[in-house]
Every structure is written in C-alpha cells, then in structure tokens.
C-alpha cells in the first residue's frame, strides 16, 4: 500500500471541512477523488502534504504516519503535490521553476537529465524555458506545475484540479500527460471536478460530498452511475 488514509478529519476553526475520510492508493494506480466545490477534496490533499494539520486520523505513507511532519519533509519522503491553481512561481523563469521542483535533490547531472525529460514531455516549455512563468498561458502553467512535480522524483504525485480554468482542448492534453506520467511508474492521486475525464483515466475513484465519501469503486463503474452525474448536472 502506497498511501492509506484512515478516518481523516480536518477543521478550520469551528468548521469541519473533512469529516472522517478513509481511502487508499496502491502503488502504480491512478486514484481520483471527485466531488463538487467545497466537498473537502482540497483539504484532504493539503492534509496529506502537511499544509494543514489533521485534526484526527492517520495518513500512512509507505507505512509511515505523516501527521505532524512539516511539508518539506513530506516532499523529501517522496510525495509531490501539484496544488490547486497551480501556484507556479510567476517571477521565476520556467527553468528556475523546474529547478525548484528538484530542490531536495543534490545530483546535478541527473537533474539536468530530468529537465530534458520534462522538456521532451512538454515541448512548449522548452521553447519558453527562459520566460517568466507568469507570462505563460493557463495550460502551459499547468504543464509547468506537473513538470515541476516530476523534477522531485517522488513516488506519489497528488494533483489538485489540474483542469481548472483550462479550455477543453487543453484539458485533454493535461489528462493525456497524466496518463503519460503514470506510465513512467508514478502513482497518482487526482482530485477533479471534471468527473468524466477523471474517471476515464483513473483505476479507482471516490465520490465526496460535504466532507464525506459517499461512493467508491472502480472508476469505470462509477462513470456509469447516475449518482455521479447527478452530483454535477442535477437529475
């Protein structure tokens, strides 16, 4: 088991955003958490990477409980988080952004290799390697965010709403990339609002509603269920 989350609760002041959630991710899988805005998806991811404290519960990563560990140590342990809204560093060049992705590593030669690998994956980034990241389009920024996460050579990548604010054509490209990334051996935990797309590429999925998991199962099964559709478009 790569990641095993048990009875996780997250609260902001008096408001409980995640109300006891358990799920797991196996090595090599793509697992997706889908649900409406405010369902608690982002809070779960932020708890995993240590950005918000878990109120109760356990987050077991390769058997080690991550609760209470500072975010930079969680990154060193092998979890790379592509945050919601991408959060690329706008005043830094594309190359500097990628180098920051490899911050925890010291192997200069391998870093350079990995950068070439990212550039071969996203050719548009290569063209813009000396451009400030803030000048990239939304889709390119998302590529950069994923590329930056790859530079950490982690084993688990968690992606928060990679399709947000992207044109459909770009959304497709992003998802194609995710599939590519998985082929390279990465395990992926994906949070998405675009349920059809997410379930299409995932192995398994969990449906969240207001801080709880209401449905779970094989992604293809979930995709066929009316409940999922209902959660987005109404009955």
């Amino acid at each position, binding site marked *: 088991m790569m990641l095993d989350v048990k009875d996780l609760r997250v609260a902001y002041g008096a408001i409980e955003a995640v109300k006891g959630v358990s799920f797991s991710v196996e090595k090599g899988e793509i697992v997706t958490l889908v649900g409406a805005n*405010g369902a608690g998806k982002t809070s779960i991811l932020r708890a995993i990477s240590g950005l918000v404290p878990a109120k109760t519960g356990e987050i077991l990563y390769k058997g080690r409980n991550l609760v209470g560990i500072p975010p930079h140590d969680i990154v060193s342990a092998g979890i790379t988080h592509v945050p919601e809204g991408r959060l690329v560093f706008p005043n830094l060049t594309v190359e500097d952004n990628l180098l920051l992705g490899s911050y925890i590593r010291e192997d200069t030669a391998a870093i350079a290799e990995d950068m070439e690998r990212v550039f071969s994956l996203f050719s548009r980034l290569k063209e813009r390697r000396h451009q400030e990241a803030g000048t990239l389009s939304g889709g390119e920024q998302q590529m950069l965010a994923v590329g930056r996460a790859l530079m950490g050579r982690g084993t688990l990548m968690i992606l928060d709403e990679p399709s947000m*604010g992207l*044109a459909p054509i770009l959304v497709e490209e992003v*998802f*194609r990339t995710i*599939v590519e990334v998985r082929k390279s051996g990465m395990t992926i935990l994906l949070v998405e609002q*675009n349920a059809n797309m997410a379930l*299409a590429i995932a192995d398994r999925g969990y449906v969240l509603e*207001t801080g709880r998991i209401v449905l779970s199962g094989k992604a293809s099964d979930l995709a066929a269920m009316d409940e999922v559709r209902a959660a987005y*478009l109404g009955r």
Partner: protein
Amino acid sequence: MTTPQETSRPILDVRNLSIAFGGLKAVTNFTLSLPEGELAGLIGPNGAGKTTVFNMLTGIYAPTEGEILFRGENLVGKPTHDYTIRGIARTFQNIRLFKNLSALDNIKIARHPRITYGLVPAFLRSRSVTETERQVEEECLVLLEKLNLLPFADTLATNLPYGIQRRLEIARALATSPKLLLLDEPAAGMNPQEVDTLADSITWIRKEFQVTILLIEHHMQLVMEICNRISVLNFGVTIAEGQSEDIKNDPKVIEAYLGKGGKVA
C-alpha cells in the same frame, strides 16, 4: 403576489460588457437583460468569468467596454457604494462577512446608507440617534428572524457554522434593501438537504423581498430547479442562453462541464 411579466421593463440591461486584465480578455461582450422580478442563473465552468461579471455589475472592476443600465441609468464608472445605494446587492463566492463582528452588526452595516442622522448628533449621541439606533436594531433583528438567524444575532460571524455564514451573507445583502440581488455560488459547500432548503429560501426571498435575483451556481440541480432562465458562460463568452431544459441538453454546455468524456483513455 407579483409574477414576473415577460413584457415588464428590464431592471437590468447589460450591453456588450467586456473586460481585459493586462491584455487577457476575461469577459467579452457579455449581454444580459433581466426583467423585474426574474430569477436568472449564470452558469459556467470554473474560471469562465462569472464572478468577473458580478464584479463589474457591482462596480468593483471597471469594464473596458460596455454599459450597465440599471433601472434605465448607466452605472459604469460609478464607485461601488453607488451601485449598492441604487439597489444592487451581492454575496461573495468565498464569503466575505465582517468576521470579527456579530451577525447583528453585519446586518447593521448593510443598513448604513439608509441611516440619515448627522455627524454631530452621532458624536453627542443625541436622542434622535438613540431612537434611530433602536429602530435599526429592531429592523435588523426582524430581518434576522425572518431568515431564521435570530439565535445567532450576537455571535461573531467567524464563529458561525458555514451554512449559517452563507445565509447571513444573504441576509446582509438583503439588508441593503436591494432591487437586484446577485448571489455568487450560494450552495457551495452545502449538502443535498441544505441545497434543497436553499432552493426554497431563494424562491421565498424573491417573493418576500420583491427582488430580482441573478445567481451564479455550480450546483446545476439547484439552478435547473429554480431559475426561469439561464445564461452559460465559458471563457468569458456567452455560449448559451435560455430555459433550463434547453440548457441541459445543449451539447456545448455538456462539453464545457464534463469535457469530452471517455475520449482520452
């Protein structure tokens, strides 16, 4: 009881509204005409520019082009508070209550433009001030009661449960005595039961307070259920407009929301 008439004069007439941020076009030629008493929905995926439209309709962002005719008057270029005083009120996507104030004080601030006593009486707290303040307190309490918020009157906004905060924000907007109410994702973060209640509340509010409502919402079920008409926005452009059934089956809308399902894998 008044029912919306298709023929009635539009309360809001938005023409070719466009805005760009540093060359990036966020909204292009947005046009909308709302008859008085209408309950309309504005939908679209994340980042489609819906909130930007609201920001322009409340004077927070100045549009690069276009007109906002509200009850016949073009409001473009006026400061935010003028929009409110003329009758446009709104809520925010990510709740912007005055966090360190009680629910009651939040409502009282919204009454601000309707309170007329002068600065000198305020300094001296003259009898007329005390009297007005007492009235304001009563009005606000009555409003809180109407929206079932009375028990929370003295609680600091920041300590209220999420759903109550959402409701309080609507109450606060109503306290400005609006003619047009803009609700930005009122159902965000609510569970199905809460959403059902919200749907009832919104229709009730429209009747009770005689307001026209424009609603941004992701929760399609809610929008389909209560809105007379719906506009769909994607990448700052209106891609569809009409009744809920038409919208539901419009392929462009489905694609905007769900993506081209299953084509990738």
